[in-house]
């Protein structure tokens, strides 16, 4: 009860208030007080609460939402930073190592192999060497994007082979052959070194082809000499002069840029045949296939041919077949020619008939 007089009260109202306060003295009984207080404590004890948790309870949901948002944004940021490394292809652009500043140089005239150089840069894959045959084209004008020699007018076969090698090696679409974008220096240097090796190998091959051709000629000359010495129908001088002179006068010509012994021997064949036409029965033909391997010497061969002549015709033919199988074509032909001279009407087996027909 308030004893403060209110503005809207009259004096009599104040007296009423005073009288009321004097009269209204009723209070609840103590037992009721005890019961009510106990019930209030039981209500609180059933769910104990700490008074200081009001802040956490009211801010629990907003803080949870904020934490989730922060975590999500952090994950998105991290994924974006890592995504470029994952999304980039294996042959990502990387700074080249120290080089000598070499630029794209034209490949030598010997042509290049389509195999990719062995030099590899970090982050790039080693393309597989498909063992493709060398192109038969004019020299290239530089190194392409993938280290392949770039030819201004590549043949279709080389183009297909390059595309196939590119796809298999790098997994991406083949780069245009005329792409002249600069390569990393190390890659270019490796390509140049590989080209040098290929050129050197081609040179060696040419040299060996020359040697083989020369060796074949020597063998032919020696064989003719041997045959001319034992030939009863022809004059030795004529045979020797006809074989030695023209052949000697026509040494093995310079091989072509391809460096194959086959082409060199093909060039010599017409001259050799014309010379031999004038000879007696020494009709030794140049082998159509180049034999870079070492050939047996002429002296042992002559002796063996004479030895077969003592055999029976069937045995002689068998020996000739063995010579063919062993790859001793010259000996086999010489022996076969001798056999036909001695036994012109003897039927030849089918395997030998092939060799008799050029």
């Amino acid at each position, binding site marked *: *009860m*308030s004893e*403060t007089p209110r503005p809207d009260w*009259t004096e*009599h*109202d104040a*007296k*009423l*208030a005073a*009288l*009321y*306060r*004097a*009269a*209204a003295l*009723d*209070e*609840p*009984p103590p037992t*009721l*007080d005890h*019961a*009510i*207080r106990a*019930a*209030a*404590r039981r*209500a*609180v*004890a059933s*769910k*104990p*609460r*700490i*008074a200081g*948790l*009001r802040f956490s309870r009211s801010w629990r949901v907003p803080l949870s939402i904020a934490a989730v948002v922060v975590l999500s944004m952090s994950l998105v940021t991290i994924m974006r930073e890592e995504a470029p490394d994952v999304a980039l292809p294996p042959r990502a652009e990387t700074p080249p190592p120290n080089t000598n500043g070499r630029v794209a140089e034209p490949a030598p005239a010997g042509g290049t192999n389509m195999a990719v150089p062995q030099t590899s840069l970090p982050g790039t894959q080693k393309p597989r060497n498909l063992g493709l045959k060398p192109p038969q084209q004019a020299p290239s004008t530089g190194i392409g994007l993938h280290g392949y020699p770039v030819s201004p007018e590549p043949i279709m076969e080389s183009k297909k082979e390059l595309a196939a090698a590119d796809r298999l090696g790098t997994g991406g679409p083949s780069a245009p052959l005329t792409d002249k974008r600069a390569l990393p220096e190390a890659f270019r240097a490796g390509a140049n070194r590989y080209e040098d090796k290929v050129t050197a190998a081609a040179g060696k091959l040419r040299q060996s082809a020359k040697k083989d051709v020369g060796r074949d000629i020597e063998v032919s000359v020696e064989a003719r000499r041997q045959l001319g010495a034992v030939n009863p129908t022809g004059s030795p001088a004529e045979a020797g002069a006809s074989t030695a002179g023209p052949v000697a006068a026509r040494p093995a010509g310079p091989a072509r840029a391809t460096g194959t012994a086959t082409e060199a021997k093909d060039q010599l064949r017409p001259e050799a045949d014309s010379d031999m036409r004038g000879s007696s029965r020494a009709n030794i033909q140049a082998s159509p296939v180049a034999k870079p391997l070492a050939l047996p010497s002429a002296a042992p061969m002559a002796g063996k041919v004479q030895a077969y002549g003592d055999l029976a015709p069937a045995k002689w033919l068998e020996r000739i077949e063995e010579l063919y199988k062993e790859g001793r074509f010259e000996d086999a032909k010489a022996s076969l020619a001798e056999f036909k001279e001695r036994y012109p009407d003897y039927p030849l087996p089918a395997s030998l008939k092939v060799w008799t027909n050029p």
Partner: protein
Amino acid sequence: MAAEQNLTDEGLMERYRDGDAGAFDVLYGRHKGTLFRYILRQCGSRGVAEELFQDVWMNLTRARQSYTVQARFTTYLYRLAHNRLIDHYRSQVGGVPVSFEDDDCPALEGIAGSRRDDPALNADHRQQAQRLLQLIDALPEAQREAFVLQQESDMSIEEIAQAAGVSRETAKSRLRYAIAKLRAGMQEFK
């Protein structure tokens, strides 16, 4: 405990909501007398008043979880008490007294006439107090409620209106009429 004594009624109720049973003890001690007398004046029976008084406090403890400070604590407490009284009236044969539903108050002229017809007049102060209580009990329930709320809790007209669930003008009319009637009944002691 000393700190809780200095807290307002609203602060104590919030602490009790958060689990502090001591805050309830302080709160109960402050308002148990006034609330009991209010209920006693409205129902007219001590037994009924004790029962209703206990119910009101139990309702308060059960509703503590959802308590938020939107008005004075006394307004909230007497609102609970008013609603419990209405439920009590409805359970009675007569139902809710008409005075609670009647917003219009009779003319003050009718009050003076009734005072003259009251034969129980006593010049003693104690007798005056008793006479006042009798006059208060003779008031209509709504007017009595307004007068008791004002006298017991020092509530303003707006707070009386909120506790009673009526408009401010209705609460003002009821209070004015109650005072006028009491004033007229105490004219014998002037």
